[in-house]
Structures are given as C-alpha cells and as structure tokens.
C-alpha cells in the first residue's frame, strides 16, 4: 500500500475530557476512495474521532494527517472535507437552494459555477422541484437529500457522515443505504461514516472500524469482522443475535482459560454432544431463534423455521471450523488454536435424570 492511497492517517490520537479519555491512543489509516464505517456502541468515541477529523474539536495528543498534511491548527473549512450531520443541520432561514449553495457562497465561488454545479447536483438528488422551499416544508427523507447535496456540491474528496440515517424510518433507511453507497462509488468519495447500526455497517462498508471504550477493537472488511472477530467484544457486538461465547469448560473437558465463540447459525440440534436446557423460542418467519442454557451459560441457536422445535432438553452440535477461540482473560483471539486438542465434554446427563 502506498502513502497516496491513504486519505486520512490517525496516529496515536488521544482526546481527554477532564480525567476521562474519550479516545485513547487511537491509530488507524483510512484509505482513499473507500467507504469506511466507524462502528461501536454509544460513548465508544466514534463521534469524537469524527469531530477531530473534521476539526470541530482538537485532540489532546497525537496527529491527524489528511492527504499527508498535519491538520493541527487547520480550521474545518480548510481541510478539504464535507460533513453530513445526524440532524441534517439545514439552516432554517435559508431556502433549499441557499442551503445547498451555502459553502460555495461562503467561498465566493462565481455565480456561473454555482448555477452549473447546482443544476448537476439537484438533478442527481432529485431535488429540482424543491429548490425554493424552506427546510421546514420538507419531509425527513427530502431534508436528508438536501444535506447530502450540500456535501456533494462542495466537490471535496472526503465526506464525513455522523449517523445520517438514524432519523429516517426503516423503509427509507434501506433505500438511502443503497443510494448513499452508489453516490459514493459514482463520485469516488472517501467516506467516513459513524453509526451504531451494524446493518448499515455491514451493507455499506468497504472497511469497518469497530470501536469500544475509546479504543479500536478491530479493523477489517465486513466479512472478516463477522467471520473472524479479533476480540470477544467484536464477537458479542456483531451479528443479530451476536456470537455465542461459552467458557470452554461448558463444552469441553479442556483448558480453563479459554472462551469458545460459535455463531447461532452454526449450531444445530443433534442426537449426541453437549446437552442444553430450553429457555425460550422466538419465531422470525424464515428462521427460529432457540434460546438455551448449557451449564449455566446462555446461548442462542438459529434454525430454519421448518425444522422441529426442540424439546425441553436437547443436544447441540457444530462443525470444527465454526469455532472461534479467545483468551478468557484478555478477550483476544487465539489465532493458531488447535481445537483437535480438546476432547468433547461427555458428561452424560441422561444417567443423572433417568
């Protein structure tokens, strides 16, 4: 990877509020032309990081490079980026046209250029008939488009988005996901997108940065994040329902300091294997979620809705390749763990109960 491929380089960036560190020595490259999603629960520092990149806030320590330039002391307007906000941040006293042209007007771009770009962007976003309205006369989806148009018209290579879809209803959100992604591809934008919604992250991202507690848990393509979580946090955050985490002792007569992760869809009912108690069943149409308990550890199993509902006690099975091994103390993935060294837990409950 060459230097020029990196649009934004975050290098050991810390942001402290009093004693509390919202970001703790975070380092990550963000590649040019990619759709990068910052994903994490509330308070994980993802919005703080976005505001630091935008220059709306200043880091306590560390450097942020955009296109190779140290951004310390550079005002937001001079960083070559645009931004879309959660509340859309449309100026209520300006018309749609004036809102879209706001940045160009501030920069005193010539009228001819303004008109030409406005025409192109309004067409692309389907805003033509709405240009003379005020933001308060638009629906949520239309306001969202105006906010996007304002970012796109600036012709800046980087676009930062702070949960831009969270105020839309489910149907519109699904449509906008597709549209956002196609706009990004079409214009070759470098997008940094903050969300706590993993569906948005999974469907749109080229690369996901999973954050927790002011630190980066994992960086990777969506498939890698889902299939090979690097930490127990990522494992228990990604997926609905997330990966089941068992202490190894619940499944194997093996080492104590080991957590085994298995996705709900990788578990199935068998006649042999560890035995579980049924807790509840949730019917989802195509699938059924079976909540169970094994030696006190709760887990979820996903099965096709056609298969038979398990009885009060049932056996579960899984394939060797579906297992993920984590260090129980640090929560870190054990990369070269050899599962064949473990022997299955053959505690036979049948004899106790019979």
């Amino acid at each position, binding site marked *: 990877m060459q230097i020029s491929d990196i649009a934004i380089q975050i290098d050991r960036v810390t942001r402290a509020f009093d004693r509390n560190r919202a970001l703790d020595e975070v380092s990550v490259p963000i590649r040019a032309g990619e759709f990068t999603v910052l994903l994490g629960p509330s308070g994980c520092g993802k919005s703080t990081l976005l505001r630091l990149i935008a*220059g*709306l806030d200043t880091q306590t320590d560390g450097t942020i490079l955009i296109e190779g330039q140290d951004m310390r002391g550079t005002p*937001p307007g001079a960083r070559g980026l645009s*931004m879309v*906000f959660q*509340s859309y941040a449309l*100026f209520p006293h300006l018309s749609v046209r004036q809102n879209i042209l706001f*940045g160009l007007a*501030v920069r005193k771009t010539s009228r001819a250029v303004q008109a030409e770009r406005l025409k192109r962007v309004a067409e692309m976003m389907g805003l033509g008939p709405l240009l003379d309205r005020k933001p308060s006369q638009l629906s949520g989806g239309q306001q969202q488009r105006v906010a996007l148009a304002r970012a796109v018209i*600036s012709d800046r290579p980087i676009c930062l988005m702070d949960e831009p879809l969270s105020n839309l209803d489910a149907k519109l959100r699904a449509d906008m996901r597709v549209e956002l992604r196609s706009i990004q591809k079409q214009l070759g934008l470098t997008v940094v997108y903050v969300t706590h919604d993993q569906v948005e992250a999974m469907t749109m991202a080229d690369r996901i940065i999973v954050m927790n507690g002011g630190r980066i848990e994992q960086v990777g393509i969506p498939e890698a994040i889902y299939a090979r979580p690097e930490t127990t946090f990522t494992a228990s955050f990604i997926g609905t329902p997330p990966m089941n985490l068992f202490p190894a002792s619940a499944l194997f007569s093996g080492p104590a300091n080991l957590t085994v992760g298995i996705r709900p869809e990788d578990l199935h009912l068998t006649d042999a294997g560890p035995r579980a108690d049924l807790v509840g069943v949730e019917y989802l149409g195509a699938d059924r979620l079976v909540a169970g308990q094994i030696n006190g550890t709760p887990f979820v199993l996903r099965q096709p809705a056609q298969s038979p509902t398990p009885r009060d006690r049932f056996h579960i099975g899984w394939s060797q390749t579906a297992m993920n091994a984590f260090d129980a103390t640090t929560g870190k993935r054990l990369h070269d763990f050899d599962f064949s060294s473990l022997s299955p837990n053959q505690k036979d409950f049948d004899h106790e109960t019979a």
Partner: protein
Amino acid sequence: MIGETLFDRILIRAAGTILALLWIAPLAYAVWAAFHPAAYEARFDLLAPLTLENFYSAWSQAPFSRYFLNTALLVGMILAAQLVLCTLAAFAFARLDFPGKSFLFGLILVQLLVMPDILLVENYKTMRALGLVDTIIAIGLPYFASGFAIFLLRQTFMTVPKELDDAARVEGCSLIGVLWRVYVPLGKPAMLAFGLVSVSHHWNNFLWPLIITNSVETRPLTVGLSIFATTDSGTTWSVINAATLMTSAPLLLGFLLFQRQFVQSFMRAGIK
C-alpha cells in the same frame, strides 16, 4: 361548575371598557384640544370648529424640527451601538469559552438590577471627565452596553442547535462568518423585539437627557417639549397638546402600523 353567566359577561366587558376608556382619555383629550381653538380647551362641543392653527403655532414657537432630528439621531445611534456591541458580547457568552466567563456574565446580570437613575450623578461626572457634557453622544453612551440586550440575545443564541454552527464551520465560515450567517438571522425576532423596547424607551427617556443637555442643538424632543410647556407663560393648553401629539406621533403611528409584527416577534422572543 364554573360557567360564564350573563352577569359575569357584562361585568367583564364593562370593566374592560372602563379601563380602556381611562387609558385612552388623556390621549383623546390631547387630540380634542389640539384640533380645536383655545376657546374649546375645557368645553366639549361636537360642533366646535376644527383647526390646525395650534400645530403651526407650536412648530413656530420652538425649534421642534431640531428636536426631532436630535431624537432621531439619538435613538438610531443607541440602537445601532446596542445591536453591534450586544450581539458580539452575547455570542461570546453563548458559544465561546474563556476564563472568567461566568463571573463576567454575572456582572452583566447585576446591571439589570441597578436602576439607571441611581447612576445619574456618577454618569454626569464621567461625561464631564470625557468632555462630553451637552452632546448627543453623552445622552446615549451610558446605554450602549445594554445588559438586557446581552442577556436576551445570549439566551436566543444558546437555543441555536450546535450542529448548525458545526455545519457552517465545515462549509468554511470563520467565527464572525458563523455569527453573521447563522446566529444573526436566527436571532432576528429577538433583535426586533429588543429594538422596539429600546427605541420606545429612548424616545421617551427624559431625566438623563434633561440633566446632560442644555442647548437646542442637543436637546431631544422630551426635554424640548417640557421646556416649551413650562417656561413660556404665553403658551396655551391647546398648543401644548398639539406639540405633545406631534412629538409622540411617530411612535404611535409606528406601533399602529406594525402592531402584528411586533406582537409576533415579542411572542417568539419570549418577552412581554
């Protein structure tokens, strides 16, 4: 059960009417006296002849045109200075962080509690030291930094969503640019409401201008009118009333014409 009976309704309407009549009576008398010859000052006759003679006479007996000019200059100057200074101060208090911010804002709130008349002597001394006694600037200077305007505008600016501020900065606005393009347009109703309070207050202000001015070139309407009404033994009530009407006419007309806008902006700014 609480219902409005016929008796209640009559009582409420009657009380309202009486209050309104009491309030309008001086003004009605002023209009009556101003448009009739001096003989009808204290005699009500529907068929009394109408005349504009009193206005001519008042206008020619005192330099009202100069007083009008002085008042207009005074009111315009105070309002302009207040809007500029207080908008800047309010923006700083609403959105910037600097040491001693809450202490300074506390001082400004204290200013709201001090009655201006208490400071008459002190202000006079200050104006003397500045060599500004008997100038129009001296009448306005003590009112430029209005605690009320700073407070009102700060409260208004604080209701502006932070994301609008952020968006403007990302789009390339400087600090002053953000103030001018975002805060000022959104603060307009509050500014209009304050402007109204300020203009009517300073148009009618009397005590301080009376003390600080002593020549025709600086005297505002209120002081000019009082001198006109007291010193000259020859003036009659009808002429004084004509002069009073003239001096208050611009404000009265303004309020009547823009009544609706005024009420709306007061409601939006939240002051009554």
